């Protein structure tokens, strides 16, 4: 059975250790925050100048001066700190964020990431902090559905969309499985779609997949 986005987010959350400093980007990856285990203290970073970000603000918690990178009103945890943009991005670019979780249009088997624009000439390009996270976080995790609505696999031999970063993705968490990209290999850490199977998926990706499920169980 393929996972729902909520289930993928929960799986990512489960893999983040106690005490980690984490950036969840914008959009779907921010779901991860809802599944962080209660017995771990995870410190969330938002690029617009905050560590110790809390949950999305309830209507009566909204503060006009407190938003996250996706411009959603959020709250503040005990232990939070504010800083300016150059300091915030120095933190991201200097290798201090333990984990970042981003969405993806395409991830290549070498770990290249494309997640900031398609090839459409009529769309307005926008990159935000994605390239900084791709280049700077200690562990770059991508959370995405493995196939587009049109059925194309987003884990590819070579990205056809413009790159966000080269050889930066460490893991892909998807509805179909969890993949680790290392040493030129794609290791399957978990596979949820048994019908497809590793062989079936390898044929679609066009690349061998290493079964690493035992290694992590």
């Amino acid at each position: 059975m393929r996972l729902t986005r909520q289930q993928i987010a929960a799986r990512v959350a489960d893999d983040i250790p106690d005490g980690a400093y984490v950036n969840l980007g914008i959009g779907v990856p921010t779901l991860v925050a809802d599944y962080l285990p209660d017995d771990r203290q995870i410190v969330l970073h938002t690029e617009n100048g905050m560590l110790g970000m809390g949950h999305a603000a309830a209507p009566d918690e909204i503060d006009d001066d407190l938003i996250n990178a996706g411009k959603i009103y959020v709250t503040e945890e005990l232990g939070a700190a504010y800083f300016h943009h150059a300091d915030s991005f120095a933190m991201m670019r200097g290798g201090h964020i333990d984990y970042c979780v981003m969405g993806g249009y395409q991830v290549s088997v070498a770990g290249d990431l494309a997640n900031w624009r398609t090839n459409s000439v009529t769309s307005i390009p926008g990159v935000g902090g994605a390239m900084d996270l791709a280049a700077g976080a200690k562990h770059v995790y991508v959370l995405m559905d493995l196939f587009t609505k049109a059925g194309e696999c987003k884990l590819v031999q070579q990205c056809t969309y413009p790159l966000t970063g080269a050889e930066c993705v460490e893991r892909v968490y998807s509805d179909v499985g969890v993949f680790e990209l290392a040493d030129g290999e794609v290791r399957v850490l978990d596979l949820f779609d048994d019908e497809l199977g590793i062989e079936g998926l390898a044929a679609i990706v066009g690349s061998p997949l290493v079964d690493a499920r035992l290694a992590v169980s």
Partner: protein
Amino acid sequence: MINKEVEDHLEAVADIVDGSTILVGGFGPPGQPVELINALLENGARELVIVNNNAGAGGSAILKLFSAGRVRKVICSYPKAIDSTVFDELYLAGKIELELVPQGNLAERIRAAGAGIGGFYTRTGYGTELAEGKETRLIDGKHYVLEQPIHADFALIKALTADPWGNLVYRKTARNFGPVMATAANVTIAEVTNVVPLGGLDPEIIVTPSIYVDRFIRTRAAAERTAADERAQA
């Protein structure tokens, strides 16, 4: 003695002329100097180069600058607005120039201008189309891109509180680009919600030291509150 407050909003931006490069604070609406932008609209300067992270998505005040056709070029990381197509239409019609910059490069390039750095090497953007044509260098086995400082004629920023010297503190995520932008412009103009007497800000908590602030206005709401206080005391 030093008192950098300017009461008239239009006077505060009077020296901004056609063709000026202006750093505008804010990440989304928080930190956006709405009243200074409105004054700039009234001022009438055209052909502006605006450096603001969100451009068309930066809130309604900055959108008015775009729709009034006053902006020649935008330097930003994320121009797409969810609730407006003003920027999109200008851009797709070729009426506005866009220099798209990874957000961290934007912040660091502005800081570099303020800190006297002539250029710096960063890993961000290497191997992407946003680094095309830029010089690269292999340092300790990793690829870096050479990035240039972004200097500006003016910075328009929003802070929470100023003292008469122009020392500033900010509030929560409204801090964002203000402190770096203040360092990188020939003239930095702040808009503040509160003004306190000299000594009213703890020297340990000042985020923007007064040296970076040329003048500031207080918001109309703050000015009205002050006037009401004075009437109450009279």
